C-alpha cells in the first residue's frame, strides 16, 4: 500500500466496522443460508425441511432444461459482451478521431448509460412488439417474420439487441477515456511508421487498449450474466414459456416464483462458483496486466 502508513491499534477497525457489519449481515449471512438451503428440500412455507445431500445439485445439473438455459446463458453472455464491446470500441475510436462535434457525440452516446434495465426492457419490448413494434415492421419489410415471445430465436435476438443497446454507452465511455489516456506520442510514432489506419489500430492502439478492454470484458460478462435481469424480466412479459432466459432469471423463477428454495439455492451456489472462477481469472490477469506507463 503506502510507503508510510498510520499505525493505530483501534482506528482501522473502527473505520472498517460499518462496512464489515453491513457485509457480514447482508452478504455473508444470506450467502451462508443459501449454501445451507442447497442441501435441503424445503417446504415453501418453511414448515419443514429434509436434508437431501447433493440431490438438489444433481437435479439441477441433470436437467436438460437447466443445461439448455446454461447454454443459452453462455451464448447470450458471449454475444452481448462481444457486440457491446465491439460497438462501444468502434464508436469510441470514431469519437476520438473527430474533433468537430466531439462533445455533442460524446453527450449523445453516453446519455443512455443511466437508463435502468427494466426501462430498457420496456422500450425494447415495445420496439419488438408483435403488433406495433417498429422493428418488427422493418424486419417484415426485409422478409423476416419476427415473433418475439413465440420464436426462441427471435426473442433471443431481441433480448441481445436490447442488452447490447443498454451497455454500449458504458463501454464507449471507458474505451474513449482509455484511448485518450494513450500517450499521444506513441500514436504519432505509429502514424509515422504505418500508413494504414486500420493496421495501425490493430498493431498499436488495440494492444495498448488491452488493459481497458480486459477490464471491460469482465464487467460486461458480469453485466450480461446478472444485470440483464431487468431486461429479461420485462421482455419475457412474465411468461418465460419457451423464451430464452438466463441462469439468474432461472434462480429467480424457481426460487421466488416457484418456491423451490432448495433447488434455487443449489443454482445460486453453482452461479457463485462460476462467478468465483471468473473472478479468480480476472485477478490473475489483472496481476499480470501490463502497465504501459
Amino acid at each position, binding site marked *: 500500500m503506502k510507503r508510510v502508513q498510520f499505525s493505530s491499534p483501534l482506528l482501522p477497525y473502527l473505520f472498517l466496522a460499518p462496512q464489515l457489519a453491513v457485509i457480514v449481515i447482508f452478504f455473508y449471512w444470506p450467502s451462508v443460508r443459501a449454501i445451507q438451503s442447497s442441501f435441503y428440500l424445503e417446504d415453501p412455507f418453511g414448515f419443514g425441511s429434509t436434508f437431501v445431500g447433493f440431490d438438489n445439485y444433481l437435479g439441477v445439473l441433470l436437467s436438460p432444461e437447466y443445461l439448455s438455459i446454461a447454454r443459452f446463458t453462455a451464448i447470450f453472455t458471449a454475444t452481448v459482451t462481444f457486440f457491446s464491446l465491439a460497438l462501444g470500441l468502434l464508436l469510441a475510436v470514431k469519437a476520438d478521431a473527430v474533433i468537430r462535434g466531439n462533445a455533442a457525440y460524446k453527450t449523445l452516446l453516453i446519455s443512455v448509460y443511466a437508463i435502468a434495465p427494466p426501462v430498457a426492457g420496456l422500450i425494447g419490448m415495445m420496439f419488438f412488439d408483435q403488433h406495433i413494434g417498429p422493428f418488427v415492421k422493418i424486419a417484415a419489410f426485409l422478409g423476416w417474420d419476427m415473433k418475439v415471445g413465440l420464436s426462441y430465436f427471435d426473442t433471443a435476438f431481441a433480448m441481445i439487441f436490447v442488452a447490447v443497446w443498454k451497455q454500449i454507452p458504458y463501454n464507449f465511455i471507458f474505451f474513449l477515456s482509455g484511448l485518450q489516456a494513450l*500517450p499521444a*506520442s*506513441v500514436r*504519432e*510514432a*505509429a*502514424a*509515422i*511508421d*504505418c*500508413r*494504414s489506419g486500420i*493496421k495501425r489500430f490493430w*498493431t*498499436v492502439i488495440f*494492444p*495498448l487498449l*488491452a488493459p481497458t478492454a480486459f477490464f471491460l470484458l469482465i464487467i460486461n460478462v458480469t453485466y450480461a450474466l446478472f444485470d440483464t435481469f431487468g431486461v429479461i424480466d420485462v421482455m419475457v412479459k412474465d411468461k418465460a414459456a419457451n423464451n430464452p432466459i438466463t441462469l439468474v432469471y432461472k434462480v429467480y423463477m424457481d426460487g421466488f416464483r416457484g418456491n423451490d428454495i432448495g433447488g434455487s439455492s443449489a443454482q445460486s451456489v453453482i452461479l457463485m462458483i462460476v462467478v468465483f472462477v471468473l473472478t479468480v481469472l480476472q485477478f490473475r490477469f489483472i496481476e499480470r496486466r*501490463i*502497465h*504501459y506507463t
Partner: protein
Amino acid sequence: MATIEIDKVSKIYHGNVPAVSEVDIRIADGEFIVLVGPSGCGKSTLLRMVAGLETISSGTVRIGDRIVNDVEPADRDIAMVFQNYALYPHMTVRENLAYGLKNRRTPKPEIEARVAEAARMLELGPYLDRKPRALSGGQRQRVAMGRAIVRQPSAFLFDEPLSNLDAKLRVSMRGEIKRLQRRVGTTSLYVTHDQLEAMTLADRLVVLNGGRIEQIGRPLDVYHAPASTFVASFIGSPAMNLVQGELHGSKLAIGPALIDLGKAVPTQGAVTVGFRAEDLQAAAPGGTAAEGGSMPLRVDYVEELGSQRLVHGMVGDQAVTVALSSDATLRGEMPVTIPIGRLHFFDAESGRRLPWSSAEPHRTATAPDLLETAR
C-alpha cells in the same frame, strides 16, 4: 537524405493566437539544425508540421523537392524521435525497430539486416528481445534512435529527445547523437529548450521566440553576436549580464561606473549593455582598468563550481554575475573590468542588437568544420 524547405510556415490553433508565424528555414542536405527557445515558443509545433502530425495553417514545407503539406506522415520519408521515446510498449526492442519497415513491406532479410546493423551501432544487441519497460532510460532512448535509423529516412526529426534523461546521461547521449548523425549523414531537425544541447549539437541553430525566428546562425556566431537581448539571455550559461547603460559620446555609464569606449558610437542615450560573465575579470584592488572599463561590484554570494566560481553581486542597483577561476581572490567589494571589445549593445526599447558591438563575431573555425578535418 534530402533538403527541407520551410517556407513562410504559420500555425494558428483554433483561429486564435498564432503558435508559429511565418517561419522560413532552408535546411541543407545532411545538415543538423537545432530549434531552440523557451517553453511554448512553438518549437514542437513547427517540428510536428514538418512531420505531418499537425496541419499547416499557411506556407509550405518541402522535403527533397516534394511539397508535403498534404502528404501523410508515413509517406514523408522522415523518422521522428520523441521526448518520451514513444516506444511501443507491447513490442520487443526488435519489433519496435522492425515495425516501420514491416509496414513498408521491406523484405524480411533486409529488415533483419538493418535491425542488426542498428543494434550494433547502438549496442542494443543484448536487449533485442526485451520489452521497453525492462530497459533503463538511456537504453530506451537508444531504441528510439534505432527506430529512426533503421528506416534510413530522408530526415530525422527530434523533439527534446534527451530531456527525460538525467544530467550525466544527457551529456553522453548528446555525444552519441552527434556522432551518429555525422556517420549516417541524415538531414536533421532537432528541438530542445536546452541552450547547451543546442550549442553543442547544431550545425546551425534557430532561436525561436513567440513563434517567430529570433536568429538563425552557426552556434558560435549566435553566441558571440546575439541578435537581440532575448538571444543574448537565452544562449550561454550563466546568462549574459544585461544592464541598463547610458551612452554619451564615447563614454558609457553603467550605474556608478563610467567606461571609456575609446571612440564614439552611432547610438546615444539609453542602451542595454550586455557582457558575458566569463569576459569579466577581477581587477587588482586600487589598480587601473587594463584595456577595458572597470566597475565596482558589491559581492552578494558566491557559487563554487570547482572549476570556476560564479560571483553574484551588484553594480549600482543592477545584478551582475562574474565567472572567475577558482583560485581568484575575492573580496566583499571588488572592481571588475571588461574588455571593451566584449561589450554588446542593444536597443533599450526593442532589444535588437545595435550595429556597433563587440568587434570579433567569431574567432576560430567552428566545430563542424574542424571535425571534418579531425576525422
